[in-house]
């Protein structure tokens, strides 16, 4: 590949990353209006501009250049980040994506850009600028105009000792200040506080140093101090940019304790220098020195240490991108090591007792290490689900708008980690469930209002770990699932006889069958229940399950349960003849020894076995795999009942050997054409066992 091509490819990948982050930030901006977000968005567009220019995407470069100008106005506060701008930027992203994907050759690109740029101009002209400071008095800027976000002010307030004599109580002033916002940081300056015996109760010795998070402008804060200003040392400083950096932004570097104390306004530069001068050698800690000198209290130093730790942690979590193929390779190599280990264990058996014992002991230690090694590799494959959730913000917004609904997406537990492969394959099912919740779950605003609910609906995506599984909940606060209607539907579809008893769980499980839905009108978004069966199948193919709970008028929860990883399964080892097979534990319903009279042959269904009044197809595994079994009569052998995609079969086996954690090794396509086998595993004794794919098995025999 020549340089230009490589460069274009690098750019296309970079742009995809940036566009995804931009999209999610823009939708968040609509809800949060945080100034840090505006900065991030600006930086992304800025980077995109630079890269597109270098990679030769001229049209994208020109366009992002204009967007950057627009965003600069938002950033500097000349324009408010309203819905109109966010809408425009989102459509702009779509344009950029199309331009990049098509190599700037898609038809209509130029027209699209011109249209968008006209909208940019229109916004710049029509949007009333945010008024600078209101001309004093009551006519302060309205909530809406100031809605750009919170600002952070560092306020240092010292007072004259005789301030009480003027009838001013500093506490009152502080209370006024608190009514303007939230105090996010607070230190009391006790440096002037004398010994108790020397203290005059009519004098003020204390001062405050705090950070106020507020939506009020600087002017409002100045007003609070109006009467004490002048002869009291008071300073108010807008530190929004700095504060956002030190608390939210990744733009951080390690700081020394002294620096932090100064930055937080606890120490002055002079005091720090003084303390540093007296620091003799490396052994005295600056924290101890400033406490000894009375410049700061123990607690303030502790606070600074905490801040330092926070900064350090954020610096430490830097990351490396690794091709997952490499991880798979590592895992495979580890599998080979385990085989080698088994071979050595075999030799140990043949040695004399003493040396055999020593070798086995050594192997035991090695075994522990390989196990831990395996766990570590698995943990590398794990990535947080957050970004996957974030991408739905845009989807929820657009889909809800298309339906004339206002729906917020809440995200919880985005830091929960899952195997990368699982995350990639859970996207589609999630999208479908979210679409369903928007379409069928959340009521129109008027209906919600009539029911005494918030006009705006909420969908929550939540993820958490529990008992070795990962759960993903899709929760809506809509009308819930109408079980009466669902029952009627089920009867109509012939799934239930009129009057037949059906538990709630059973009723709800009908939702996953093709052709059942309770929406009165068929929406163009999710149609008539088509898809939930696909959702269930997709999740099951990830060896997961899905379950619904619902409360009338309150909403529904779709709970997806997934294994932590696809590379390891809990398996049941079974023997057929001299071969060992692995059955995924999750698919097993039960194992039983059938009676002779339970076996029948039914027309068009072949051999079946009766299990508690239900007929289940019988699969002779030895037939399927063409091997010699120990038993040919089902009543002599064992039958394992397995379930996938809603149907059950009984597999004939000779013996159950027990459960084991299995590391899956995938098979090349030319080794097996059978869909009934999903992979292989190496057992502890070095033997190879095939893993039975229950999905594939059921499909194979139903043909």
């Amino acid at each position, binding site marked *: 590949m020549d340089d230009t091509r490589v460069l274009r490819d690098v750019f296309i990948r970079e742009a995809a990353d940036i566009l995804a982050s931009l999209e999610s930030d823009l939708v968040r901006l609509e809800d949060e209006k945080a100034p840090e977000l505006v900065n991030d968005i600006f930086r992304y567009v800025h980077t995109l501009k630079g*890269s597109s220019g270098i990679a030769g995407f001229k049209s994208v470069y020109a366009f992002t250049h204009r967007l950057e100008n627009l965003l600069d106005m938002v950033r500097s506060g000349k324009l408010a980040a309203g819905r109109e701008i966010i809408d425009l930027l989102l459509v702009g992203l779509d344009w950029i994506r199309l331009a990049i994907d098509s190599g700037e050759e898609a038809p209509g690109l130029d027209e699209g850009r011109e249209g968008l740029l006209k909208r940019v101009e229109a916004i710049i002209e029509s949007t009333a600028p945010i008024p600078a400071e209101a001309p004093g008095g009551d006519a302060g800027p309205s909530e809406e105009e100031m809605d750009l976000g919170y600002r952070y002010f560092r306020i240092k307030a010292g007072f004259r000792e005789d301030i009480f004599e003027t009838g001013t109580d500093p506490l009152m002033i502080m209370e006024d200040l608190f009514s303007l916002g939230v105090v996010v940081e607070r230190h009391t300056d006790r440096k002037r506080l004398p010994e108790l015996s020397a203290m005059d109760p009519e004098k003020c010795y204390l001062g405050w140093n705090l950070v106020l998070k507020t939506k009020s402008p600087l002017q409002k804060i100045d007003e609070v101090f109006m009467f004490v200003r002048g002869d009291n040392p008071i300073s108010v400083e807008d530190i929004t940019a700095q504060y956002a950096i030190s608390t939210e932004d990744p733009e951080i570097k390690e700081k020394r304790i002294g620096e932090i104390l100064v930055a937080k306004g606890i120490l002055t530069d002079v005091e720090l220098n003084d303390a540093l001068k007296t620091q003799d050698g490396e052994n005295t800690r600056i924290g101890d020195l400033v406490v000894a000198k009375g410049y700061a209290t123990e607690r303030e130093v502790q606070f600074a240490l905490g801040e330092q730790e926070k900064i350090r942690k954020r610096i430490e979590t830097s990351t490396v991108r690794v091709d997952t193929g490499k991880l798979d390779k590592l895992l495979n190599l580890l599998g080979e090591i385990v085989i080698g280990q088994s071979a050595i264990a075999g030799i140990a058996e043949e040695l004399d007792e003493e040396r055999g014992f020593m070798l086995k002991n050594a192997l035991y230690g090695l075994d522990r290490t390989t196990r831990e090694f395996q766990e570590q590799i698995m943990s590398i494959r794990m990535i947080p689900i957050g970004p996957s959730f974030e991408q739905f913000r845009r989807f929820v917004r657009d889909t809800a708008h298309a339906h004339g609904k206002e729906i917020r997406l809440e995200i919880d537990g985005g830091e929960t980690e899952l195997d990368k492969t699982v995350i990639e394959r859970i996207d589609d099912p999630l999208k479908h469930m979210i679409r369903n919740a928007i379409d069928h779950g959340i009521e129109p605003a008027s209906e919600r209002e009539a029911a005494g609910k918030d006009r705006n609906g909420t969908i929550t995506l939540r993820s958490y770990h529990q008992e070795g599984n990962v759960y993903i909940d899709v929760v809506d606060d809509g009308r819930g699932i109408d079980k009466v209607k669902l029952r009627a539907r089920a009867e109509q579809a012939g799934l239930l006889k009129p009057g037949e008893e059906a538990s709630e769980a059973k009723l709800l499980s009908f939702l996953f069958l093709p052709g059942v839905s309770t929406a009165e009108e068929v929406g163009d978004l999710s149609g008539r229940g088509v898809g939930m069966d696909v959702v269930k199948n997709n999740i099951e193919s990830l060896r997961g399950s899905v379950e619904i709970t619902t409360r009338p008028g309150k909403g529904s929860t779709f709970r997806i349960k997934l294994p932590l990883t696809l590379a390891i399964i809990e398996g049941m080892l079974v023997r057929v003849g001299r071969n060992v097979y692995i059955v995924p534990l999750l698919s097993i319903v039960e194992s039983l020894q059938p009676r002779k009279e339970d076996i029948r042959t039914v027309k068009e269904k072949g051999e079946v076995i009766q299990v508690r009044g239900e007929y289940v197809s019988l699969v002779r595994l030895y037939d399927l795999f063409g091997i010699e079994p120990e038993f040919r009569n089902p009543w002599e052998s064992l039958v394992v009942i397995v379930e996938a995609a809603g149907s059950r079969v009984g597999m004939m086996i000779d013996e159950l050997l027990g459960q084991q954690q299995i590391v899956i090794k995938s098979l090349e396509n030319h080794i097996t054409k059978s869909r009934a086998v999903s992979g292989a595993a190496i057992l502890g004794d070095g033997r190879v066992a095939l893993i039975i794919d229950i999905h594939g098995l059921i499909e194979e025999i139903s043909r």
Partner: protein
Amino acid sequence: MKHILVIDDSPTIRVSVEFTIKKLGYQIRQAENGKDALEKIAEIQKAGDDIALCICDVNMPVMDGITFIREFRKTDKFTPVLVLTTESENEKVSAGREAGASGWIIKPFQPAELLKIVEKFIR
């Protein structure tokens, strides 16, 4: 072995700079941000090699270019550092200069132009 360090958070920019200047025969190293760059520099020096030049973006996450230059200048007063800026960042040029930058390049650049500036500094 002499190294040229290319510091930019955008892989596109890093790769394009590398392609442009690789014919000069230097070992080219990429860094994603100022902090990454400081680490790479420490590595290079530990291996007993020298740095001939740094080419550095201004606006980067984790550690920006200006901070990087300041840090770098604490131990190295002479190695040239070129700042990559866009035309909309005029004010950054003077900030970079104060921090100790030796020159600047405006993005997007023409390869020939970049080459000329780089050659001027490493001659």
